[in-house]
């Protein structure tokens, strides 16, 4: 099988990740604040490693959740967007859009569309963010791979008095990040994509000084006899996913060992090559412009995205994603109202797999053109 659906979840994982999960399950539990075993808990290790990946000096500003969706739900419950204006980019994922719409309704949400190169201009944010409370920016699109400039967009949001909440689910582990310098007030990440962690891991960065009321409560191992704790640990209540965090720590360690700059360079080169080859095929339309992400969205004339995905899977044993990719606003914004076929890489994607994929797409596109001529 050729797996090109890494923007959904990465596969294969480096072998050290499942090994770390298994070791964590076999070992005596080391949960930082809830036991008497020495330090060296999975949580603490993972927080330190993720701080390096995300460009955060203080690991204690990182909080763990089950992933980006839970992070956004907690953050939105805490920020309480009802009755306030929010700005989202057209690239946002349903992990944000659905809880935002559920809590605030769509009437007070403004959508920032990209330019022809797929970039959200700071001027667009400045215009839309007037009287807005929140600006949500998808840092790296899971549809086209478009990467947004967080510092300029943060500055535009802050100039309007809005918080900037970034989604770095696609970029964390795929490229160097510097959240401390990005200006983002909050940044959401998931563990099971370019960080190679297990599903059910992720979290968010909360800049010191940014107020975020808690949205769930429970035991934290801190606070003594206090029934209601106001400490930062309130975001991580209940027993944590220690085995998952052990795997995520190992995934973070893996990408740091290779080097985020090297991963970014490798993936950018392979993605650009893939985009160029697809764009050069008759009957194939590629969406968006070359950028730093690892996803390429395309369509084949005469076939629906689902048709192409079906043929790739059942005839060529190639896994891609088809449809709207949980980013429903992006489809219209990029000119693909019926959705797209998406091929997405990881730093472990083999060149020969990409060549077999390109050959398959070439055959399908030629077949579709031939079928069109015969009808």
């Amino acid at each position, binding site marked *: 099988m050729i797996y090109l659906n890494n923007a959904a979840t990465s596969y294969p994982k480096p072998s050290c990740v499942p090994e770390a999960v298994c070791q964590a399950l076999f070992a005596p539990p080391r949960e930082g604040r809830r036991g008497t075993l020495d330090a060296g808990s999975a949580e603490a290790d993972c927080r330190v490693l993720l701080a390096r990946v995300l460009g955060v000096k203080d690991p204690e500003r990182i909080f763990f959740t089950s992933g980006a969706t839970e992070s956004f739900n907690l953050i939105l419950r805490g920020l309480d967007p009802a009755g306030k204006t929010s700005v989202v980019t057209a690239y946002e994922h349903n992990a944000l859009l659905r809880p935002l719409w559920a809590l605030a309704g769509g009437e007070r949400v403004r959508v920032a569309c990209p330019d022809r190169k797929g970039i959200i201009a700071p001027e667009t944010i400045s215009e839309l963010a007037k009287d807005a409370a929140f600006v949500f920016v998808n840092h790296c699109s899971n549809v086209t791979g478009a990467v947004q400039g967080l510092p300029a967009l943060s500055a535009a949001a802050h100039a309007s008095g809005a918080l900037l909440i970034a989604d770095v689910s696609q970029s964390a582990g795929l490229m160097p990040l510097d959240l401390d310098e990005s200006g983002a007030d909050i940044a959401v990440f998931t563990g099971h994509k370019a960080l190679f962690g297990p599903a059910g891991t992720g979290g968010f960065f909360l800049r010191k000084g940014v107020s975020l009321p808690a949205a769930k409560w429970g035991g934290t191992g801190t606070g003594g006899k206090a029934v209601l704790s106001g400490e930062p640990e309130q975001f991580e209540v209940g027993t944590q996913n220690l085995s998952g965090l052990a795997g995520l720590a190992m995934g973070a360690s893996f990408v740091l060992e290779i080097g985020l700059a090297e991963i970014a360079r490798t993936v950018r080169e392979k993605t650009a090559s893939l985009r160029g080859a697809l764009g050069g095929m008759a009957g194939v339309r590629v969406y968006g412009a070359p950028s730093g992400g690892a996803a390429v969205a395309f369509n084949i004339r*005469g076939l629906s995205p*689902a*048709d192409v*995905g*079906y*043929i790739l899977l*059942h*005839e060529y044993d190639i896994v891609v994603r*088809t*449809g*709207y990719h*949980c980013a429903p606003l992006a489809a219209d914004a990029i000119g693909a109202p*019926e*959705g797209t076929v998406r091929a997405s890489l990881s730093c472990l994607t083999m060149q020969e797999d990409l060549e077999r994929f390109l050959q398959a797409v070439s*055959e*399908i596109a*030629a*077949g*579709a053109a*031939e*079928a069109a001529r015969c*009808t």
Partner: protein
Amino acid sequence: MHVTTVERSFEPCSESGWYGYDVHLSEPIDGALIDALAALGRLSRIRTLKRPFFTVRGDGFLLRGITGDRFLRAGFAKKDAPELSDILSAIDANRDPAD
């Protein structure tokens, strides 16, 4: 040839507003079955692949499959898939009497 089982599909048809089903068959898909299904809608074929691919699109439904496979994918605009019974009937009408 006859239908052995029909099950809800994992394919994210529902994300696009459609509901997917896998129709499993007792024999591999052949030209006769495709011709029978073609009577239900608009047939499109890609014959140049190693195993030809086909779709049949009608109002509110679509079928897709690959010649030689023992299953085909059916998508429906409505959750209760009212066209499914017509599709199953078309397959059964194509049934070999000795089957």
